[in-house]
């Protein structure tokens, strides 16, 4: 059998994936990631940002993010999330009801709301906590809380898979008769300055969870991260970045 048709299809697919989203008249996305500290073999905090830009007057409505990270990053072994926060309580009362040992990180989100001819921006606070698990995977809940002009709380749920976090984003209502809230920028920190408690000789003793374990070797080109963004209009955007290898290693 001739391989020409297969090659043609492969080339066409490669061309499609290589085209920037803007060339298709769609939405674009960028992202960045950092380790703090950035030392091979050490425990670290992972921070990442993503930003969405729509080639239209109205912002694109995000419906989901597939966040891909190096599979050998020690997130599951980090010691983060050694308790779980009930989803219903989190939705009703916010992250303050969650056990301290369930906290896994924090962040913020910038959202846009078209109100009349104006585009109003709002910054929401994000808390990352461990949720209950029924299937053996670590479940991470992102509580996104905005106060003004739209007071709302949304809880996003994802499960930690090797190298992948799939985060569905439901439509977020805003003001009556106004369109849904659009997420345009997000900053998330996994780890960081967290205080946990453990029982020692009958007392509750505070400690800091270890943090995410970095591999001892850095891949050529740095640690790769990428994300796929899905939008309500059926559009899709991809973004990728890499955390450079520490110098001297």
């Amino acid at each position: 059998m001739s391989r020409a048709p297969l090659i043609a299809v492969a080339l066409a697919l490669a061309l499609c994936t290589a085209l920037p989203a803007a060339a298709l008249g769609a939405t674009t996305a960028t992202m960045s990631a950092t380790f703090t500290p950035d030392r091979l073999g050490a425990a670290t905090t992972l921070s990442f940002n993503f930003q969405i830009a729509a080639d239209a007057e109205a912002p694109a409505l995000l419906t989901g993010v597939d966040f891909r990270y190096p599979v050998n990053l020690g997130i599951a072994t980090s010691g983060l999330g050694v308790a779980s926060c009930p989803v219903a309580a989190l939705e009703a009362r916010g992250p303050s009801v969650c056990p301290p040992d369930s906290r896994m990180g924090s962040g913020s989100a910038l959202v846009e709301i078209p109100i009349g001819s104006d585009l109003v921006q709002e910054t929401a606070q994000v808390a990352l906590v461990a949720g209950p698990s029924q299937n053996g995977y670590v479940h991470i809940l992102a509580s996104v809380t905005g106060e003004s002009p739209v007071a709302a709380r949304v809880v996003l749920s994802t499960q930690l898979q090797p190298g992948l976090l799939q985060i569905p984003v439901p439509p977020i209502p805003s003001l009556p008769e106004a369109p849904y809230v659009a997420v345009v920028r997000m900053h998330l920190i996994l780890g960081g300055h967290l205080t946990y408690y453990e029982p020692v000789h009958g007392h509750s003793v505070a400690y800091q969870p270890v943090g995410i374990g970095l591999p001892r070797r850095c891949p050529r080109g740095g640690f790769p991260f990428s994300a796929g963004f899905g939008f309500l209009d059926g559009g899709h955007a991809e973004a990728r970045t890499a955390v450079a290898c520490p110098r001297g290693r």
Partner: protein
Amino acid sequence: MRFDRWPGGLDRSAGRAAALAVIVVAVATTSSAVAARVLSVHDEGHLHFIESDGSEIIDEGAATGTVPGTLRVHFVYNGEPAVSARFTISGHGGSISGRAGGRLNNPTSPAPSFRGAFTITGGSGRYAHIHGTGELFGVFTRRGRNKYALVVQAIGKDPY
């Protein structure tokens, strides 16, 4: 031996690195009507954290039981409930190496448990010809001073 006895043992342990692992490998030699000797494995010991490499935790410590010696475990947990490990027990009579896999439950617990199986992949000295499989039970302690502790119990009958 019941698996749920183990976490208490970890709480009693102390020490930096806080990675304490307990592995019990009680080994008894019996005769086989067919041919070779068979090790009836049922062992226990305590390990401490040595280092980590991303999603891999390396623990080491004393194994006690019928095959006393030093046990070194490379434990991999990358978010998949299926965890895996490589291990080597080095004793006076030789060493035993193998790999193991299991399923981890309750991952947001301070000490999730796992259960699975191990396969012996090789040996040296007295155990140069050992082979076989067995059951594996364990606990992975994730927090505080005992971070990265492993509690493992291995049971099997392995010709050598």
